[in-house]
């Protein structure tokens, strides 16, 4: 039985660097999101319950973890790793309240694309 294996380190580098940067980006986006909600509600004098920031943060963290897992498996299972990294890019892209989020978004996209287009080799299981 044979299986296709990737040969490039690019997805791993992009996934892990993107993942570790996506975590502070998520915190930053959550904070920015909360500030925007508070400014919107400034006239109605309602206090934000923090749910907007919490949701942004949760999605950002899930994106970061998906990116790290996808990146580290980029050589072993290229197709599923690529799908994970594209999903991570979408989740990170959803949180563009902070400029820092653009960096992991770009890194995850490059890594995800590389997972699919990298040179592959067949190995015997």
């Amino acid at each position, binding site marked *: 039985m044979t*299986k296709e*294996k990737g040969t490039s*380190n690019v997805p*791993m*580098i992009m996934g*892990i*660097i993107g*993942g*570790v*940067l996506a*975590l*502070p980006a998520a*915190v930053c986006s959550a904070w920015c999101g909360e500030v925007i909600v508070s400014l919107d509600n400034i006239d109605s004098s309602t206090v934000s319950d923090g749910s907007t920031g919490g949701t942004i943060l949760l999605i950002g963290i899930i994106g970061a*973890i998906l990116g*790290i*897992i996808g990146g*580290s*498996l980029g*050589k*072993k*299972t290229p197709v599923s790793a690529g799908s994970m990294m594209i999903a991570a890019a979408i989740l990170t892209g959803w949180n563009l309240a902070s*400029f*820092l989020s*653009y*960096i992991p978004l770009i890194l995850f996209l490059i890594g995800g694309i590389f997972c699919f287009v990298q040179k592959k080799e067949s*190995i015997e*299981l």
Partner: protein
Amino acid sequence: MYPYLNLGHDILLPLYNLFIGIGIVFGLIYLDNQIKNLKIKFLTDRNLHISLIISVIIGFLGAKIFELIYHGKAISIINLYSGGTTFMGGIISGGIVFLLINYLLKTNNLFSFNLVVPSLIIAHIFGRIGCFLGGCCYGKPTNLFFGVKYPESAPASFYLGQDIYSHPTQLYESFFLIIFILIIEKYAQFKNKIFIYLAGYGVFRFLIEFLRSDERGHFITELISPSQVISILFVLFVVITILIKCYFFKKSTASNNF
């Protein structure tokens, strides 16, 4: 020391996180090379990567939780964000998870631990440089010529005071780890790497803690820092393992003689 890299347009890249990422990348590249050299089967390689990456993620969470426990804080989402991390907590939680996942995936545990030790050290070297740039894990004030002065914004300046030179304990640790990995890779037998790492790092960490000046918290006892307690446990674990091995070796030699 230099916590953020300004990319312009107010985009500040956190260098602590970046260096941890670089460390993990170099660690994984080194692991890949070892796997290639040892001609490890694909399925074992894949299982090892799966268990390793889950352990790293849970290890980071564990590192944060241990830090909260050391400082007697409640384990809550807000505290998890605002709190720091402790390497020893990460090692323990990540190590336990790695052990369990390897057991579930039926991968040889001792072999896996010996395989990942050099990668762990590489990641740790970069992580400590990240600590130095972030201005955390600082040392006690010193007048020695290699003492460092942190910028005003760094936690070290806030707690020690400005214009105070302190021991760059992060760099001491990085330097030690560089020497340590060279020794392990050159002289240690593959089957003993994890034990040499636990004993060697345990002893070093116990000693370097005396030079640390940041808030260490307490665990079990207040006489020594939590990391020193865990260092002692590491060394004890190695000593007990050696004694057990010696006992069984003697027993098997004795039974072979009859």
